[in-house]
């Protein structure tokens, strides 16, 4: 009985507490990311943005969530019910699961696993299932077209993302995310691997179906793509999942290229600030770029999107893998 208590119950509760400590801030942050997006877009369009609910409109997202929660859940008659309801759950759960391996500071990580970066890559490549299942199960044309576009798009951009990750791994010599961050002490990978950083960020845009690659939900042609038939709670799950994925991709970019929790310079005023705050600052910066891109660029045409993925990014990232590996061998810079 004693071993049951100390062997299972207490570690179990501890793990549960850690998970909540990561997920609750993430979920609350999602609400503010939505607000942030609306506000930034408004400023860029010389509007005011949400400013009624709460001080400076800060509570706007919560009001919106409450409103959507109170709506009726509509399941279309022709829909495949189980898959239809499983799809938003898949999107939401996957966007939450991946936070387990993100290191917020030295040792501040729920699961410090050896293959952390592969785990992140695996989870992000699974994100397509939520969309493809939603599109198919809705049994309707627009969602189906959205799902087809999305699956082709996400699979294409994953390939170049994989190569970008390989270049970073060559410079680190470990798949562990904490080791990747530690390897950037002194010099962030965004500087020596700048082209890879740009490719990774643009692929992240495509991977999260964000502008200018938001063809799966292009409202002018597909209404709202795979989300057309969703309402109420399933819709909220999609929405939360999508924004959590945006934050996740920003966190991934920050960890891989912007030194994760590390300060930009390891000198006095910078290293007084704790690591989690640095990571948050970098995530916010990248989220701002996500929104900035949305406000600036028109949507890509589908063939242009495919061309960019397969004919530009894939050869470029492949070339950089070769160059990086060559440089590491030539100057004997391999991490020991």
């Amino acid at each position, binding site marked *: 009985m004693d071993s049951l208590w100390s062997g299972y119950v207490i570690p179990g509760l501890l793990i549960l507490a850690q998970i909540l400590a990561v997920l609750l801030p993430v979920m609350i942050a999602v609400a503010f990311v939505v607000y942030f997006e609306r506000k930034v877009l408004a400023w860029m369009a010389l509007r005011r943005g949400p400013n009624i609910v709460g001080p400076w409109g800060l509570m706007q997202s919560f009001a919106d969530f409450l409103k959507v929660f109170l709506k009726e859940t509509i399941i279309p008659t022709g829909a495949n019910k189980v898959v239809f309801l499983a799809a938003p759950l898949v999107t939401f759960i996957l966007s939450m699961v991946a936070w387990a391996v993100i290191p917020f500071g030295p040792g501040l990580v729920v699961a410090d696993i050896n293959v952390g970066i592969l785990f992140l890559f695996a989870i992000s490549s*699974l994100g397509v299932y939520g969309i493809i299942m939603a599109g*198919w199960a809705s049994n309707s044309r627009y969602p189906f077209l959205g799902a087809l576009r999305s699956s082709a798009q996400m699979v294409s951009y994953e390939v170049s993302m994989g190569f970008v990750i390989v270049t970073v791994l060559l410079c680190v010599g470990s*798949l562990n995310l904490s080791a990747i961050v530690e390897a950037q002490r002194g010099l962030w990978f965004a500087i020596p691997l700048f082209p890879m950083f740009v490719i990774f960020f643009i692929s992240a845009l495509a991977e999260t179906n964000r502008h200018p690659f938001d063809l799966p939900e292009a409202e002018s042609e597909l209404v709202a793509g795979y989300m057309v038939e969703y309402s109420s709670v399933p819709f909220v799950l999609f929405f939360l999942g999508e924004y959590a994925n945006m934050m996740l991709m920003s966190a991934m970019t920050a960890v891989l290229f912007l030194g994760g929790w590390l300060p930009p310079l390891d000198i006095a005023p910078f290293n007084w600030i704790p690591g989690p705050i640095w990571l948050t600052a970098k995530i916010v910066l990248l989220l701002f770029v996500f929104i900035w891109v949305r406000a600036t660029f028109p949507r890509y045409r589908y063939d242009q999107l495919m061309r960019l993925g397969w004919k530009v990014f894939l050869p470029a990232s492949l070339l950089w893998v070769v160059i990086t590996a060559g440089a590491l061998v030539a100057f004997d810079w391999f991490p020991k």
Partner: protein
Amino acid sequence: MVLQEITFYLFSAIIVASGVMVIAARNPVHSVLFLILAFFNAAGLFILVGAEFLAMIMVIVYVGAVAVLFLFVVMMLDINYVELRQGFLNYLPIGALIGFILLVELVFVLGTRFATPETVGATGAPIPPLSEMTNTEALGQVLYTRYIYLFQASGMVLLVAMIGAIVLTLRERGGVRRQSIARQVARRRDEAVEVRKVTPGSGI
């Protein structure tokens, strides 16, 4: 230990059940979804034995890439499910035969393990204990150091197969207006615009 056993039986039970559902489900899309569930739980089993790298690769390659393409194709098929079932009895003997051969092979593999336990460690590359080396490194040692030529050769085979598949399916359709970005960029002003003096009352 108890927890590990419970997890093992849970994963295995789900694999077997979803494996059955893959062939029993009426709807091909459901079959693919059950296949994905089976892949996932297989990855779980890999993690249980400490093969974390294989587990992640399993998820990335099979679930993230292969199954997406399956689903992509199966979703677009317009099949009459009843018609699909009708050939079942015709294919039963050959299916059973293949299943039987696989079973016999599995029995052989397991049989050597029990009959002559000393051969088990001796045939492959030596596996370092988990505490000394992460299994990413161990796999790298085996694939890229010990069997580098075989590995490269298999890579070549796959490359040839890939190029073959592309060549076989590539067809040029006439009458399609494709965007040629190089041509657009290379265009000069004097090719695009021509300035002519037009005298009033006469056209061009």
